[in-house]
């Protein structure tokens, strides 16, 4: 009889596992080492299967989250992509929005992910649509044929197609894709009207090229994993976590690999949200402090919030995903003098100054083997910052690290209309419990949640997830013009796109609405879908005001509707931990056990 769900979260250094059999959860961490991702996962499973007493063939489901795509992005190692775009727009990816990375750097650096496609791999094709989607010049099929000749002669790993206004009318993009597939059937093709069906050509080009850039490697890993599991007798449900915390089938996951970029942080945020909900916390920010980055996510009413715009590894992402933001401050961050007596925490560069973890070790906060060069590095830092001892320099580094994260949290919170002093911080990752109290002090926070399983939060989060089916349709009409009849029509079309509902499924609706057609869309989330115009407008006004503190100036333009249908979230109860559990309590804080972790508080006075 099949029983048990195994959740696997593969990160840069470790494979985290959580095995759930009838509510009893076993966790483990296993180093990735030099192994390929699929091999690392298999080894980790072998290591835990004996202790947890399961075999792959017995499992109901295996759920996988991965930072594989993120690692590829950070290391800039992806597939070779050819981009097909309109005549006159070959430079869209390089031009970006013409803004620069750092406002005050005297050397202006572009904020565009130009690395996704080589200049020689960009091909222009004739043909054009207008801003209503009508054709004003037919697709140049002869020119397209010549482009395919070149792809045949000089093969690439994938093709991205992004044509102007294709989000309104995909005919030209489809014709390009069909022509390529007819002659090169094995070549993966990504079209912009599927990858990112939204206006503004630069952002859509990035989304499309990114999907094509990640597709060959990430789809291969997923397929290899599926084959390896099958070979070992697994016949259950293989599911992949996406960046919103939903579970996808292998087929769906391979059709949208960018969706997994932030699956690890999203699943960790999900675990934090579960605990926050049980602890009665309304608003929380998770801080997952790892070796290279600190990931933060906003939790409201027991669920991670989502966003439509994000930036990952300096690549602008435009897709619905958990609102995860990363700042490059982790245990390997290196302290550098700023020239004014202060310290900047930066990516490691050279061996002159100390990194954060060795400073924590020097202060006795972390147990690490002593590095004989630590003293030399601390001396160098002390000299340049005016510290009187190595300990003082080490304390200054820890303070600078806390300051760096606090600053990032502040920006993150304020930009989301959240008062950073009034949220609960959820401490996760290897350094979460060590640094978060100091960060909380800087922010004026008085409430910290510390999950017992914070080191494997990504795997734990997947145990609470469900799979769902999603359908999206473009509406592009003023809400007041749509009326009840119009909305009814779109609802019928949406529901027809989804598999039949059952007694156990629930639905939720996401509406992309802006005050006017030319303003930036805003996601209105409705846990209970409605097709009543008044209720939709009321929800838009309420959620817009909550987000921006302003009533929308116009009654609303509905761009698109997304209906999701899936199993209800399982009613999971996490056990209270023992108060004997070893947890570092910072001075001035008290702790209490809550389901799945500890809550640390201090007085605000």
């Amino acid at each position: 009889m099949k029983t048990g769900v195994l959740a696997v979260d593969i990160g840069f250094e470790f494979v985290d596992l959580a095995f759930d059999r009838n509510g009893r959860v076993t966790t483990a961490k296993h180093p990735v080492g030099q192994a390929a991702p699929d091999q690392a996962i298999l080894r980790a499973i072998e290591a835990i299967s004996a202790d947890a007493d399961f075999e792959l063939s017995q499992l109901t489901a295996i759920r996988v989250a991965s930072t594989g795509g993120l690692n590829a992005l950070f290391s800039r190692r992806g597939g070779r992509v050819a981009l097909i775009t309109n005549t006159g727009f070959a430079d869209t990816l390089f031009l970006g929005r013409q803004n620069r990375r750092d406002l005050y750097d005297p050397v202006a650096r572009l904020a565009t992910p130009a690395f996704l496609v080589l200049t020689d791999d960009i091909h222009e094709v004739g043909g054009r649509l207008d801003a209503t989607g009508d054709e004003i010049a037919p697709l140049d099929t002869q020119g397209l044929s010549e482009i395919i000749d070149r792809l045949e002669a000089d093969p690439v790993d994938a093709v991205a197609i992004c044509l102007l206004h294709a989000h309104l009318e995909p005919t030209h993009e489809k014709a390009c894709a069909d022509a390529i597939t007819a002659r090169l059937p094995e070549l993966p093709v990504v079209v912009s009207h599927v990858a990112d069906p939204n206006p503004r050509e630069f952002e859509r080009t990035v989304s499309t090229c990114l999907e094509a850039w990640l597709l060959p490697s990430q789809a291969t890993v997923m397929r290899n994993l599926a084959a390896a599991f099958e070979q070992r007798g697994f016949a259950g449900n293989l599911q992949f976590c996406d960046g919103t915390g939903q579970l996808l089938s292998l087929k769906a996951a391979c059709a949208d690999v960018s969706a997994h970029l932030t699956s690890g942080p999203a699943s960790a945020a999900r675990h934090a949200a579960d605990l926050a909900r049980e602890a009665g916390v309304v608003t929380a920010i998770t801080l997952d402090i790892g070796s290279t980055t600190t990931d933060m996510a906003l939790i409201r009413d027991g669920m991670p919030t989502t966003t439509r715009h994000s930036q990952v590894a300096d690549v602008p992402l435009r897709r619905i995903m958990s609102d995860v933001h990363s700042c490059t401050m982790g245990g390997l961050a290196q302290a550098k003098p700023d020239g004014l007596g202060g310290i900047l925490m930066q990516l490691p560069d050279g061996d002159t100054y100390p990194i954060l973890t060795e400073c924590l070790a020097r202060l006795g906060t972390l147990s690490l083997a002593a590095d004989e060069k630590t003293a030399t590095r601390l001396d160098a830092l002390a000299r340049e910052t005016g510290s009187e001892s190595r300990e003082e320099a080490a304390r200054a580094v820890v303070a600078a690290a806390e300051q760096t994260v606090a600053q990032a949290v502040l920006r993150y919170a304020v930009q989301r209309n959240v008062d950073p002093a009034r949220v609960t911080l959820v401490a996760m990752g290897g350094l979460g419990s060590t640094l978060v109290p100091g960060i909380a002090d800087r922010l004026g926070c008085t409430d910290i949640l510390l999950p017992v399983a914070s080191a494997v939060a990504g795997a734990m989060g997947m145990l609470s997830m469900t799979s769902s089916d999603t359908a999206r349709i473009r509406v592009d009409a003023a809400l007041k013009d749509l009326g009840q009849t119009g909305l009814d029509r779109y609802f019928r079309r949406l529901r027809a796109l989804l598999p039949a509902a059952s007694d156990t499924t629930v639905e939720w609706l996401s509406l992309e609405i802006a005050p006017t057609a030319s303003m930036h869309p805003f996601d209105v989330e409705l846990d209970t879908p409605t097709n009543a115009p008044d209720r939709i407008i009321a929800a838009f006004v309420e959620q817009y005001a909550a987000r921006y503190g302003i009533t929308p100036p116009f009654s609303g333009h509905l761009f698109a509707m997304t209906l999701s249908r899936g199993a209800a979230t399982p009613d999971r109860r996490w056990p209270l931990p023992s108060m004997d559990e070893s947890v570092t309590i910072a001075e001035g804080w008290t702790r209490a056990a809550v389901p799945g972790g500890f809550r640390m508080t201090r007085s605000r006075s």
Partner: protein
Amino acid sequence: MTQPAVPDAFNLDVVQMRLDAIAQGMQETIFRTAVSPVVREGADASCALFSATGELLALSDAIPLLLGALPGSVDAILARFPAETMAEGDIFFMNDPFDGGTHLPDITVLVPIFSQRRLIAFAASILHHQDIGGMRPGSVPPDATSIFQEGLRLPPTRLARNGTILPEAEGLIRLNSRVPDTVLGDIAAQIAAAEDAARSLRTIATETGESAFLDATAACLDRAEHQSESLIAALPDGPFQGADGLDPTPGRPPVEVRVRLTLADGRISADFTGSSPQVAAPINCVRSGPLSALLYAVLSLAPATMYRNGGLLRRISLTLPEASVVNAAPPAPVNARTGMVRCITAAVLQALAQAAPERMPAANSGMSFVLAFSGSWPDGRSFVTTEIIAGGAGGGPDADGADAVSTDVGNAMNMPAEALEEIAPIRLVSARIRRGSGGPGRWRGGNGIERVYEALVDAVSVSLRGDRFERVSEGLMGGGRPQSSRATVLRTDGTQISLTARSAFTLDRGDRLVVESCGGAGYGAATPA
């Protein structure tokens, strides 16, 4: 934990970063809720917090061109409406360039913030409004010869009392703007941003107590002043000279900017004596222009940990000749002041490069195009839209200059073809990097941009403001000069019209406009092939 009355060093960092984050939060609110495309797509707005005594406390990361605009505007409003006369729910606005502003489309909105009935701070924003009247749609007439042709000139004025917009203030906008709903929508976004900031600041003041909050903000200003003093003291005293000039306006004398920078005694002094007298063309700028240029130049040398507030302003002094292109007096027109501010910035950076040669690249394009299109759709609806086009970055000191990027005091974003074509009957035919336009050198200057537009209806009015059509920057350390800017109209009958740097003209259906921005200068002598 009891908050000390005067915060210790780390608490001060926390206070400053919270203030910075609140200013940035204001910016986010404006960008996401603004109605007009020049803000929504072009990001042409800036936000700041001010102390209860009117000193700059925190700035958003926005367009540095606007850095110097808010302090002067806030001073002007406080001079007309003293802080002690203000009450909760008051809102003020103004745009007078000669009383602290920049040019007429940039309206400053100021909201006093009270906690426990005590004034604790001000929230301010400045935003480029789509149309504020005047002789041409968009309120940036390139052929203006006096301020009276440029639109509504607002002295410091009460906009709201008890949180309610005054009908007479709204009437000023309604009667003067061609697109009043858009302007009022954007003013609402400015107010919302300020109210957001007010909520956040009140929370901090409540946590710390109002007195401790005021002490903390005063201490942040002192800390920034000290940091600025250290930063400037670490540089050689100078004096360092810089000079630059704009393309001549037909029929007007050439204009030059001269600056003499002295960095002695922990102060930076910029003396613009010798700069040209103001002209009857809209290229003049007012005091906020050189202040923005100088603030940007100093901040570009500062580490990220330095507080960016009015403490720095305490260490800056400007000497500006009266009624000059860098400090115009009424009735000089100023709407195209961007070119002049870029020119001033180029001169200041040129001087600063002598003080810190290892950190500064060669001159960037020193220009950006500002294009305003207006007219009517076939169904009679009117449209007005503005876009800003960058040039190339300067090469060096250790890499080629970036192509097609906003530089120094500019940071506006471009207009996507899909956005432009939706809001105006204009087709963007192509948008390309203008290859070969960057100056040659060991490190090549960044290339400019070429954009080609086609009118889809008759009688599209275009106002074009640019620069570097004739005079381009020299390379640095032996690097070469970039290619100059160009703009050309291609009529359907085959006629080609070369435009000057500041032109107003009409496009009929099928006519094309080709705009080519200047590249950046090269750095170091090019290695022979």
